Every structure is written in structure tokens, then in C-alpha cells.
């Protein structure tokens, strides 16, 4: 599907606003300023090559959230172990956990962060597009190089041909979270509602 310049301009403005809302939410957890570095404001992707679009790094956490309702798609946040450790320090300063408890707490924390910052962007999209949209319960996946990821499978199955992505950066904490979205033509429908 080709998008007009008007559709692309409108989409990029809403994407920027939405990702800024996510950054603001993340700053509650980091207790620092969080900037949005937008790497890709909107691209039509080649679905035959989708595996290469989903970043793969062993021992990193990928939290994906499926969008439910009027807007269909999937988003994911990519946390390295360094990101997780920094966030744990920020939230649980001065608390000590044994290894099992630390892993359990880390997973609970990153899932909740993903839930909140994804919903912050989703709420902006919903308000602008006059849509009702939910995010499903976040799903944690430790990506393995040898297997096709859950996200890649979802993108193919649901024909999510639009991609936008950014990095949420706290320079003070040396935190860099990749935040990636794949959406289907319901996103274009939302842009058209916005323009009409």
C-alpha cells in the first residue's frame, strides 16, 4: 500500500507525540529525563523479510504487547541486561535479593514498564484517531537466535506492513530501550479519520 504525503506527515506527527508520551512515562521509573530518538518515523516493510526486522540478541528481554480493538498490531521493547540492572537499581535502591528473586523481580518490573509506556503511546493514538484500543497482557520472550521470534510470526500472520521505531534514552542512566511498532492498515484508517 502506498501512502500519500499528507498521510505520512499526519502519521509522523502523531507518532512523535505518542512516543514522547511513552518517554514521559518511562521517566517515572528512571527518575531522570528521558529523550526519544526516532530512528524511523514510518516505513512500509517487506513482509517476506520480516525476521531480519526483529532485532535478535541472546540474553536480552523482549516484551511484546499485542494491540486489541480498533488499532491492530504489535509493539515490543528491547531491554539488555544492563538496562534491566539500571532500572532495578532505580526502583529497588538499597534492597538486596538472591538470584532467583532478582530474576523474578526483574521480569515483573520490565513487564510493567512495557505495559505502561506502550499504553501511554496507545492512548495517544486512540485519542487522535478516535479509536478504542487495548493492549493485551505483555508477553516476555528471551529471544534466541535459532528460532523465529513470536513478534516476527505475529507480523506475518497479521499483515502488519507499517513499522516505526525509536530509542528511549536516559543519558544520565546510560539506558537505551529500543521501542518498535508494527501496525496494519487500521493505522492508515486512523490517519484518515484524523485528516477528515
Amino acid at each position: 500500500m502506498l501512502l500519500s504525503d499528507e498521510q505520512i506527515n499526519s502519521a509522523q506527527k502523531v507518532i512523535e507525540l505518542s512516543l514522547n508520551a511513552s518517554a514521559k512515562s518511562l521517566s517515572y521509573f528512571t527518575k531522570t529525563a528521558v529523550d526519544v530518538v526516532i530512528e524511523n518515523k514510518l516505513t512500509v516493510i517487506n513482509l517476506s523479510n520480516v525476521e531480519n526486522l526483529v532485532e535478535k540478541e541472546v540474553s536480552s528481554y523482549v516484551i511484546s504487547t499485542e494491540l486489541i480493538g480498533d488499532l491492530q498490531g504489535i509493539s515490543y521493547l528491547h531491554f539488555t541486561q544492563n538496562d534491566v540492572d539500571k532500572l532495578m537499581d532505580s526502583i529497588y535502591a538499597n534492597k538486596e535479593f538472591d538470584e532467583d528473586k532478582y530474576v523474578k523481580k526483574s521480569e515483573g518490573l520490565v513487564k510493567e514498564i512495557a505495559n505502561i509506556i506502550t499504553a501511554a503511546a496507545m492512548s495517544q493514538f486512540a485519542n487522535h484517531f478516535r479509536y478504542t484500543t487495548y493492549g493485551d497482557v505483555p508477553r516476555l520472550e528471551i529471544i534466541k537466535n535459532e528460532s523465529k521470534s513470536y513478534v516476527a510470526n505475529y507480523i506475518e500472520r497479521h499483515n502488519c506492513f507499517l513499522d516505526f521505531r525509536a530509542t528511549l534514552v536516559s543519558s544520565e542512566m546510560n539506558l537505551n530501550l529500543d521501542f518498535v511498532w508494527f501496525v496494519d492498515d487500521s493505522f492508515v484508517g486512523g490517519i484518515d479519520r484524523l485528516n477528515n
Partner: protein
Amino acid sequence: MSKTVLIIDDSSFMREFIEETLESEGWDVIGTAADGNSGVELALEHQPDLITLDNVLPDMLGIEIAKILKKEEGITSKIIMISALGQDEMIKNYEDYGIEYYLVKPFTSEELIENVNNLF
């Protein structure tokens, strides 16, 4: 006597955060639930003064739970919907489901306490 609260949230992080915050203010946490069905059972059994209710749970939506508890079962517990979704349309309509307040995440412990105190 302490006021009682039930926490319904699928996030272990949020259950712990709300529990610690309200206990520090003297609330008696009578239970926590990670899904809607367990939450409804606990709410009907204990009829707490307050229910903090997540909106997206693995088995049902928080607004459905509120409707069951307040509209169908007629319990008098006050409900604070706690959700990461801040859509205008949802916030505008929360009272229709018997929800007393809609609190959008993220928030600080002070903000939670202030909003809870406003209900009592």
C-alpha cells in the same frame, strides 16, 4: 479498625507497590488477585472497603468486573480503576460501570494515597 482493600492486578510489580503503599497508610490488605475470576470471588467473599482494579487482566476486563460487582451483585466497595490506558473515552465513562475513580499509571505512592483518601 483498619479499612480493608483488595488488589486485583496481573502485574506482580503493581500488586506489591499498591500493597506496600496502602499498608504503610494503615490499610488492611485482605487479598490480592492476578486475574479477574479470583478477584471477583475474593471481592464477593470479603466485600472490602476498597478495590483497586486493573483494567486489562488475562481473563477479563476490569470494567466487566466492576459491572458484575457493583451493578449485578450490588456490593458497596469503592473501586479505583488503575490502568495504563488513558484514553479520553474510557476515562469519561468509568462512572457508568460503578467505578468511583480512574487513576492512570504511572503514579507515585503519594498520588495513590491522595486519591484513595479522597474517596473516604
